């Protein structure tokens, strides 16, 4: 028992917590939770909690079902929305096999492996996501378009706005859970909000994003609405992305920073960017993992549909944001393809690994795209060597399936499961007859 674990046990006693939830994430990015009575926690620290992995998406097959959830005491937090005298706390858990060794299918382990690789090369990976989501009025009735809570737009201040109260409540609760919020505002779509989390190392951040989604949903419910991280809930309105700013540190030094270089981006930074761009088509099925994700990517507005980079170019997939002279610490790259409904562990593992591959193999960064790439013709884009991202989940899977790189980063088991599951989703989707088809064809054909 280490001190962190002792601290957890003491806190539970002192604050009279009745339940402790162990959180983990399945391969598709859904949060899973198992409750442990405080009395069993000591045992759980020592040996973990056994559970049947076969019922968790992507974890294991039926005949090797036993898995162990091992709580990570450093992630202990009291859940603020389960207040009252008998509170509840949560810890993230690592998933292990019964005879020791991490489960290869645990997304946390996939990210950890990627981070370990970075750390072998002397790097720490920091990320800073801007999470967008919509608030809709309760309830959602199948077949009817959801109703946003307001009709405001980008940065609008809404008088007596529910969104206002909501954001304040959500931020308070996030801060109570140790998640620092940098920034929040109303986004472009009606009922759409954005909350930016303060940068942290990728593992903490992936945990934070999982927590964030839960908190936002809880708070929305308390305010009589519901939150959705669906990438494109409303046709004709902006989708919900999760633009992520990334940076690599070597000890205390920002490895992307080079004061004399263009945009103050070092050679390492350029290679990292080149790596992310070069592999962006292969990893698209993970960064944008739902059928609906491609409606956002190809729905116009600011969506990054083409593989290119720019400075202050809001149509680029990868952006080198504005910088203030001399703030070397904050030099970073913004990746704009990721959407809010991704599995953050797998996504960050792939982004990091793509960047590291760029560094290691000294990829050349292509020329900067200075125009609005949406405004170019196909021919112009082709001449400039700008590839489109996949048009659909099916195409993304096709590309990913041939990627040794993605297989290596995700590990063969996750790779295999992910493809299988997503092909199934694609097949299910293809078999649908949509209202688009009925409206357009039924009477005419």
């Amino acid at each position, binding site marked *: 028992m280490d*001190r962190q674990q002792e601290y957890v046990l003491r806190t539970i006693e002192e604050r009279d917590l009745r339940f402790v939830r162990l959180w983990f994430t399945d391969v598709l990015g859904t949060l899973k939770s198992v409750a442990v009575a405080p009395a069993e926690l000591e045992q759980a620290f020592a040996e973990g909690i056994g559970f049947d992995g076969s019922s968790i998406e992507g974890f294991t097959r039926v005949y*090797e079902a036993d898995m162990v959830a091992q709580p990570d005491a450093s992630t202990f937090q009291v859940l603020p929305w389960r207040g009252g005298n008998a509170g509840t706390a949560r810890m993230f858990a690592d998933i292990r*096999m019964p005879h020791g*060794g991490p489960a290869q299918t645990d997304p946390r382990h996939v990210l950890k492996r990627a981070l370990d690789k970075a750390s072998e090369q002397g790097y720490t990976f920091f990320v800073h996501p801007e999470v967008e989501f919509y608030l809709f009025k309760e309830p959602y009735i199948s077949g009817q378009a959801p109703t946003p809570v307001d009709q405001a737009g980008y940065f609008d201040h809404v008088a007596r706005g529910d969104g206002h109260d909501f954001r304040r409540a959500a931020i308070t609760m996030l801060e109570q859970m140790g998640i620092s919020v940098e920034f929040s505002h109303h986004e472009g779509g009606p009922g759409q909000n954005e909350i930016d989390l303060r940068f942290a190392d990728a593992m903490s951040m992936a945990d934070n994003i999982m927590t964030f989604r839960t908190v936002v949903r809880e708070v929305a419910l308390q305010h009589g609405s519901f939150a959705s991280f669906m990438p494109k809930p409303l046709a004709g309105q902006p989708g919900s992305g999760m633009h992520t700013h990334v940076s690599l540190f070597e000890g205390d030094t920002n490895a992307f920073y080079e004061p004399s270089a263009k945009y103050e981006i070092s050679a390492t930074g350029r290679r990292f960017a080149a790596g992310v761009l070069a592999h962006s088509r292969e990893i698209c099925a993970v960064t944008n993992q739902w059928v609906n994700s491609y409606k956002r990517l190809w729905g116009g507005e600011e969506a990054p549909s083409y593989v290119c980079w720019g400075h202050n170019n809001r149509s680029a997939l990868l952006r080198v944001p504005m910088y203030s002279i001399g703030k070397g610490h904050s030099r970073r790259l913004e990746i704009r393809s990721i959407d809010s409904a991704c599995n953050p562990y797998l996504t960050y593992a792939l982004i990091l690994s793509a960047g590291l591959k760029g560094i290691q193999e000294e990829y050349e960064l292509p020329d900067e795209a200075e125009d609005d790439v949406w405004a170019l013709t196909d021919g112009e884009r082709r001449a400039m060597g700008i590839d489109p991202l996949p048009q659909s989940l099916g195409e993304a899977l096709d590309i990913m*399936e041939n990627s040794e790189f993605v297989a290596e980063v995700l590990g*063969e*088991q996750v790779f295999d499961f992910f493809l*299988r599951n997503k092909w199934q989703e694609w097949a299910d989707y293809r078999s649908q007859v949509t209202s688009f088809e009925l409206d357009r064809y039924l009477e005419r054909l």
Partner: protein
Amino acid sequence: MTSSPGTPLAALARAGFTDARRADTLLRDALKAMPAETDLESLIADVSNTADPDQAALGLVRVVEGNAEAASSLSKKGVERQRMLAILGASCALTDDVVKHPEHVDVVRTAGKPEPAAVVEAVQGLEDRPGADALRVAYRKELLRIATADLMAKDPLVAMPIAAHQLADLAGAAIEAALHLARVEVANSELAKVTVIGMGKCGGRELNYISDVDVIFLAAPVEGADEEAAMRAATSIASAVMRVCGQATAEGSLWPVDAALRPEGKRGPLVRSLDSHREYYTRWASTWEFQALLKARVIAGDEGLGQEWLDMVAPLVWEAGSREGFVEDVQGMRRRVEEHVPASQSDRQLKLGPGGLRDIEFSIQLLQLVHGRSDETLHSGTTLEALEALRDGGYVGRDDAAELDTAYRFLRVLEHRVQLYRMKRDHVMPSAECDLRRLGRSIGLRGEAEREVVERWRAQQREVRRLHERLFYRPLLQAVAKLSPDALRLSPDAAKTRLAALGFRDPNGAIRHLESLTSGVSRRATIQKTLLPVMLGWFADGADPDAGLLAFRRISDALGTSHWYLAMLRDEGTAAQRLARVLSNSRYAVDLLIKAPDAVALLGDPSGLVPLTPDAIRTRMTTAWQRQECTADAYTAIRNVRLRELIRIVLADLVGDLTDKNIRLALTRLTDSFIGAGLEIATRDIERKREAELDIDLIIIGMGRLGGREIGYSSDADVMYCFAPRSSDSKDVGTKASEVITVLRKGLGGSGPDPTLELDADLRPEGRSGPLVRSLESFTSYYSRWSAGWEAQALLRARVIAGDGGLATSFIDLIDPLRWPTDGISGSAVREMRKLKARMEAERLPRGADPRTHFKLGLGGLTDVEWVVQLMQLRHAARVSGMQTTGTLPTLWAGVEAGIISAEDANVLEAAWLLASRLRDVGVLWRGRAVDSVPSDYRDAEGIARALGRKPGHGVELAGEWRRTARQSRNVVERLFYGDPAPSPRGYPSRRS
């Protein structure tokens, strides 16, 4: 030699000068500078008594020339002059110092006690370069005192720890002085309290004459100071300390200060607060860091802060032994210690490699971590003190501890003397004769010192080489069996803790086995008592130490009294080691050896691990069965031969140098001979029953992997039986053939001494519904009904393995045109094969099996690769003679040669086929039964990875490795077998709509 300054050269040579003429000149020069009454004879005696008389003579001249005071004081004979000469003869670096600082002559001559505090005093009121110079001069002055006492000591082994202790204190004082200089230099330095923690040998008060000084910097703001500003100042102070000590000035440099042992190593901040350290050590630190902390000691700066820090880390250090993964971490660390030696110096290393200084220190620290949790007496940071405490607690045997103590001191003395000469960080025995001579003489040897010092060093090395046995394992034996009347013994609980730390998962069981193996006064128990400490180490290195020990007990019980067994274990060192490896890594080998314990003798036989030639096996089987009248006994006889040969192959696989390919070949040859001998016995049996010579010819055709000469441990023998009457008036020929085959199958099948070999005839015409035995005529008419061409696929691997030569030729003549059709096979036949294969993929996989992990029937597995090869063969073998063979890989590469398949694709397919074949085989070795897919169990995967020859700890990677190899193979199969890239989604036949 009287008052005349001239000295006969012969006398000088006899006195030990190597260059007498030069020495003569030098001594004359020295004498000239000295007062007239100086006694030359005693001077020569004193000079010649040093480690390097020539060097000392030269040094003497340099010291006394132009220094009348020194000349005068050194003219008098006695211990004071001897002290100076000892330094001059042992260290040219210190000679330079004395020449440069004449006042140091008196320091050496008077041999005062070292006063480390003087170093701190020397820098008071100074700064910058003058400060750094003063620090260096003062440091050397104290260093001279330490070296003088060390060199003058009667017994260098006794003096070693004292010198090492003083050197550590001196280094601490030098850091304190550097800290003072740094504070003067750094702005705002008053904001921060700074403590320097000594780590490594400095922390353990056992420093060398010259080495990196390992430290960790710790800081806190003084009361009321801004924390950030304070930490910034502290970081500047720490950098300044490192610079002050490390940089070269007019007075040279001290030594590099190394802060790499701090949290996060070189990537972490140079200075941390107490809280930051606590945070790191409770959350992130790994086992080796706790082991390093064992030596932590406050050496400079704020003591109160340092004490708080020590109070914080101490409990963590002693809890480290109960951390998860401790055993694996420790084993990994041990391997690194043993491995890390530059090859060029492996033979002359004092520090690195097995039995080197680091190995000793590491092993002692490991025992401290294992037992120190429950025993506070073991908490010393000093190697020799810790060893003493381990001895007093009974954790290490008394005699072993004494010998190790001596060995360690001796190696350290050598290291000290080597370093002292030039003040260079060096841990290698010199090779030049003059260097060795000086080294030998510096530890008091005379005569042929250069030879003797090497001999003594080698002797100590031999002692230390059995270090792990002495430290780790022998005390365990002490705990269960009275080896010596030593009253101090490892307690049963401590023995269990230690067994667990060494990797035994069931310490109670292990203790029971040890007790059983060593109880009693029999010759066997006596030999095993001496053997087991070594063997325990070998078991512990295996994948399953517990199983190894248990198997050893069972085999010893079976063989215990055999004279050859004990002699083999005792006398043939490698035999015992091989046995331990076999037993702790292979359940299959254990199962076989339990049935035939005396086959253990193969391990002691130089040619024991080379598979016999087919002829030799045949002869052994024939002589074995022909002695038996009864048919059942005859079969038992050949099955015993098979068991023994199988053991030979298994042993050669595990500890010999049989390659993967040759294992499959050896197994095939053994199976061929076995079935052949079986057929002879059956023929004799029927001839006796019928009281007539059989008038039929009978052959057995090997199919599948047997036909391809590529069977593994778990393969069935796929066969067909074919007969022909010898003459046209033979009668009842079908019945006779059936009778023979029935006897054969009964004889080879069922339980017996060897693992059962199933004869599987399902690949015969019409499969299970066809007759078991067919005449050549019947085969001919059956095959003539074929039309499509693809039916001959199974025949591609047909090979006659036993029976009459004439019939064999006829049979082969019959099938060759079928399996290698002149114009290949038609497009529709190819489509037919593809359809068949696609259906099989959906249907044949056993229930619950994962198509991604099944070696044989899974995607990209054995069947996939073989079908690609066989399709290629059906199409092209008629015109490519290299493809007219039954082996999978030879055919594949013949295809590459003929340009039918690219070498790149062939490599991918071969890799998958080889990995699948090997995994199946090592699966049997490890688990004792067939393993069809990558085991999900961690320990199984680990055991299989070890049997594959992987380094320990890599088992978990196996599943990923197979999945990757198979996925790549499947991609090639899709393209080559199905003709074009697969439509997506690919590879999920059951899901395709």
